[in-house]
């Protein structure tokens, strides 16, 4: 391997982020509206005693912590991969259009009353939307569409699904139903169960594997598409892996948690100086940092005493947007 001549050694950085994630997950289990003794809950859970504390831990806190880490990892790793694929620091998981389609799928589940019939209708609707959008993008990619075409198709898909979502809200039978949809779209991890985890985590893990497999190709793409190809990397394969992986991971994330903005955009920028701006190394650490950031924001949501609880997507956008502006200013000053 090349020497890690810039930034922090990769293993140390990744391990540090893993420790941070574990600490945040532990905090996420403990922090909530109801005072909670984690040791009792754990003891009850291990012993199979169906106490209230054990149920809160297993049914509410644990899925929330797992999904916080998984959704954050998905957004971070796909944000880094899409920025690397497009060599554009402004790309984010939304640009492939899958998040809009996932949101539309979930909104349709709301609209047709499926969500009141059974709880998993929302994530299932989201996954169906994401699946259709992914199939569309993969067909384009297999027909030899270039990166720019894929992204433009993603933008068009986002516009169309956004319009259809607005149409569903417009035609909503009652203002309460519309409000429910709007709240869902803001993004949240509250009231998710282990069933939600079981339904969406496999798609996210599949997406991570596909995206992380492009690490060396990402490095090669630093030199442009022609040079990357001359170094033996297949562009269609790389596009397929990144777009397919992003679609699976982001589609599942939006399906289970709604739209959580700015994590995928900001996290790669935060991590880039720490890995010497190397796009291949950026993938894993962006995933880990995305997990930490999302868990942190979800803890913050619970610590801010508002009623109703602040939505996670609102908090990440409120924190992310000004932070991103500061980052852009610094990058401009550095002349990059």
């Amino acid at each position: 391997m090349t020497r890690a001549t810039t930034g922090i050694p990769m293993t140390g950085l990744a391990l540090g982020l893993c420790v941070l994630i574990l600490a945040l997950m532990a905090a996420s289990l403990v922090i909530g509206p109801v005072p909670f003794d984690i040791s009792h809950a754990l003891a009850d859970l291990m012993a199979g005693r169906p106490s209230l504390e054990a149920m809160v831990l297993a049914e509410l806190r644990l899925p929330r912590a797992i999904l916080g880490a998984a959704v954050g990892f998905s957004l971070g790793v796909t944000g880094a991969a899409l920025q690397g694929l497009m060599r554009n620091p402004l790309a984010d998981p939304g640009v492939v259009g899958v998040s809009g389609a996932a949101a539309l799928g979930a909104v349709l589940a709301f609209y047709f009353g499926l969500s009141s019939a059974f709880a998993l209708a929302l994530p299932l609707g989201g996954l169906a939307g994401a699946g259709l959008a992914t199939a569309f993008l993969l067909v384009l990619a297999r027909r030899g569409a270039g990166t720019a075409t894929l992204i433009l198709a993603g933008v068009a898909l986002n516009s169309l699904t956004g319009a259809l979502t607005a149409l569903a809200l417009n035609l909503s039978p009652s203002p309460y139903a519309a409000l429910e949809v709007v709240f869902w779209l803001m993004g949240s991890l509250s009231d998710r169960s282990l069933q939600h985890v079981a339904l969406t985590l496999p798609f996210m893990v599949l997406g991570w594997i596909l995206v992380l497999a492009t690490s060396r190709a990402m490095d090669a793409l630093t030199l442009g598409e022609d040079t990357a190809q001359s170094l033996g990397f297949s562009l269609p394969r790389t596009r397929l892996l990144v777009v397919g992986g992003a679609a699976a991971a982001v589609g599942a994330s939006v399906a289970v948690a709604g739209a959580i903005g700015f994590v995928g955009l900001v996290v790669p920028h935060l991590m880039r100086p720490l890995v010497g701006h190397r796009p291949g190394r950026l993938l894993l650490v962006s995933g880990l940092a995305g997990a930490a950031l999302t868990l942190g924001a979800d803890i913050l949501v619970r610590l801010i005493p508002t009623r109703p609880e602040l939505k996670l997507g609102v908090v990440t956008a409120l924190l992310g947007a000004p932070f991103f502006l500061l980052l852009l200013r610094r990058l401009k000053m550095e002349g990059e």
Partner: protein
Amino acid sequence: MILAAQDLTLRRGDAIVVRDLSLTARPGAMLGLIGPNGAGKTSLLRALCGLDPVAAGVVTYDGRPAAALDRRTFGRAVSYLAQNGRIHWPMKVEEVVALGRLPHGPAEVDAAAERAMAAADVLPLRGRTTGSLSGGERARVLLARALAVEAPVLLADEPVAALDPYHQLQVMEALRDAARGGATVITVLHDLTLAARFCDRLLLMKGGRAVAEGAPDLVLAPERVRDAYGVTVETGTRQGEPFILPWRRSDAEHKP
């Protein structure tokens, strides 16, 4: 490794950009592709390293059709230095150069990158980030990246275009050294003196066709240059080496 093209025709959209062109490039020698803008030099180079499809004809490496080589083997066998190459992220110079070792896996990364940086005279820049480099420095870093592949075939598209005279000579010497070291080198050039001095053979192209191929003094005969480029030239030798200077546009020859 012998790189050969047989009756090559290349298209860009509906237009034919190279027509019925054949060439052979051998190890230990540098072949210069010269010709006016739009002659098809870059298209030819791209097709030789498999970046663009071939409409007709065949490209072979040591007699094997290029299409039959798997991508990984190809990445190790051919190094391509793109025209106006870019470095999209502000990585450190030595890490950019080491990207040339990607086709080889983890073996010999540091040693090969070191040799390449020395050959392209970028060792003093190794710790700088690429965002802080001048255009000429960046061009040399990219040359070092291409040399780091240590491929038996090196294809360089206008490698001296952005360089000052000192570094033009240095880069041409580095390419010649690569050829002397056993590589098959093909380079696109616009400077006819550099082409005459450093290349073992030249292929003069115009309108997608090869109009002359052979030793530099034959290919760069003044009447050939005038026909291909539309310029008259002043020629001579200095310390036993040729120079050839574009002097006037031939359509302006009789104007005062």
